[in-house]
């Protein structure tokens, strides 16, 4: 079972550097001849919320996609460098991406439930992972729906097409779907940006509740949101033709006293 202690941001910031869940070394992502991002050495502390921020087109999403090798699915995409998770380089060709993705879940910008019923959306991944016992699956589905606060809303209509849920409900279902496989790490690509403010608030609250149980990496455009939820911050910028990582560290420290002039300007909203 995972730790139930909820670390407080300031405590983390002042204590010794925590253990790392993910560490990239000189990571670069190319699409054909185009270089999206290069020279990224990102550090993601365990069981904290790491926010990746930066202006559009600076490679945040590319980095996030590479972390569970979803870049494999993009024609022409090439990832170089190293991504260490538990000390193993996941970019190593023999590394099984399927096993990786079961440990490293992902929530997308736009809610993308399968065009199936609510229950089937959660049932399918469990079945696929070899959970044969129907009762066990039902139990885990209920647990995970409770966890994302959806159970009371949908318990009576689990057979309804998932795409008939509202946008916020769909996104929470997608989070539930990612969680039902009990991953260690959860990647979230601007999970609130396609939602209205109220739904966005609900999902944001949910992310905060995941703190401590999961290592969460969340890409966001919303600085206020990053300020509210992030323990750890990574700031990306476009320099020259490609994106790069300009600064990373405990969120409080960066928000209070950024080391780079670019970061300071960005956080103040003085540019772009």
């Amino acid at each position, binding site marked *: 079972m995972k730790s139930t202690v909820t670390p407080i941001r300031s405590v983390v910031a002042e204590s010794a550097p925590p253990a790392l869940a993910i560490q990239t070394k000189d990571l670069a992502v190319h699409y054909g001849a185009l270089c999206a991002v290069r020279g990224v050495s990102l550090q993601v502390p365990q069981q904290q919320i790491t926010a990746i921020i930066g202006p559009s087109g600076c490679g945040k999403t590319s980095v996030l996609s590479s972390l569970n090798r979803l870049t494999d699915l993009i024609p022409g995409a090439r990832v170089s460098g190293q991504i260490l998770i538990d000390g193993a380089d996941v970019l190593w060709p023999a590394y*099984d991406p*399927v*096993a990786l993705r079961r440990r490293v879940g992902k929530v997308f910008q736009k809610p993308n439930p399968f065009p199936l019923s609510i229950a089937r959306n959660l049932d399918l991944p469990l079945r696929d992972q*070899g959970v044969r016992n129907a009762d066990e699956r039902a139990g885990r589905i209920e647990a995970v729906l409770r966890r994302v606060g959806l159970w009371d809303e949908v318990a009576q209509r689990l057979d309804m097409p998932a795409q008939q849920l509202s946008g916020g409900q769909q996104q929470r279902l997608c989070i539930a779907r990612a969680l039902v496989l009990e991953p260690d790490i959860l990647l979230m690509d601007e999970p609130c940006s396609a939602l209205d403010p109220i739904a966005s608030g609900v999902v944001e609250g949910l992310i905060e509740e995941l703190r401590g149980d999961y290592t969460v990496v969340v890409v966001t455009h919303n600085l206020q949101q990053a300020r509210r939820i992030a323990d750890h911050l990574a700031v990306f910028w476009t320099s020259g033709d490609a994106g790069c990582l300009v600064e990373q560290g405990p969120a409080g420290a960066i928000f209070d006293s950024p080391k780079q002039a670019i970061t300071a300007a960005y956080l103040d909203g003085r540019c772009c």
Partner: protein
Amino acid sequence: MPASASRLDPDRLLTGGLRLCAAFSAALLILVVIFLLLQAGPVLDAIGPWRLFADDGWFPADTAAAGQFSIVALLAGSGAVAFGATVLAAPLAIASAVFCRFVAPPRIGQLFRRMLEVLAGVPSVVFGFWGLVVLVPLINRWQPPGASVLAGALVLGLMILPTIALLADSALRSVPRATLSAAAALGLSRWRTALQVALPAARGGVVTGIILGVARAIGETMAVLMVCGNVVQVPASVFEPVRTLTANIALEMAYAYGDHRSALFLTGLVLTLLVIALVLVAELGRGANARRTAHG
């Protein structure tokens, strides 16, 4: 990750099986071409490819003299009828698609689309039958003998029209609503939106529809056999009868043997090559289009 090795197996199997099926589907074309070549071999050996164009007419089974195998008139016939059908059908089809999407009240547009769908399902032999009994006598009263390039183009045009119209319609439908809203927000008239925003955006689908239509027009057999008059000649006007490559096969195959039969398979091969050329041209056009879009 101990489970990963065994987990990969069903997927490997699936991928392999699927690829095998795909390879078979692709090989079908090669099979068809090889088989046509085999059957056309004897006459190709005997006369060589050039006499297909240099010979004195199409008399493959002439008992008096040696067979003559010129397919120039047949090619002209196929070309004339297919061209005529496309010229008649394409503008009407595109206008019909625009009608469905932009002009007609939704109910009528829906009804019209249903009608096109039914029309698309009418078998070609029915078109031919109708053309022979109704259309040909009508044209005959105006310009004898009636069975002609015009009759063929009209019947084929009506036949390929639903194909082009439905494909154009679905291409127009797939133009993102946001694009149309953007045009509307700019205060563009419906006319400009349809002609200058939606149609260019749907160009790919429209062109595909026309190409499919042309291919169908060239390949159609029964309808042209019934209404085109079947005289082997290069037509001097649209009122003259012609024989197409396909009608020629259907007319003579059952009666042919020896070199004649082999020559008919050769014309089948020519037809297939014609279609390959058409697809290549379409491909080049699409490529040029893509480049223009990329740069522009």
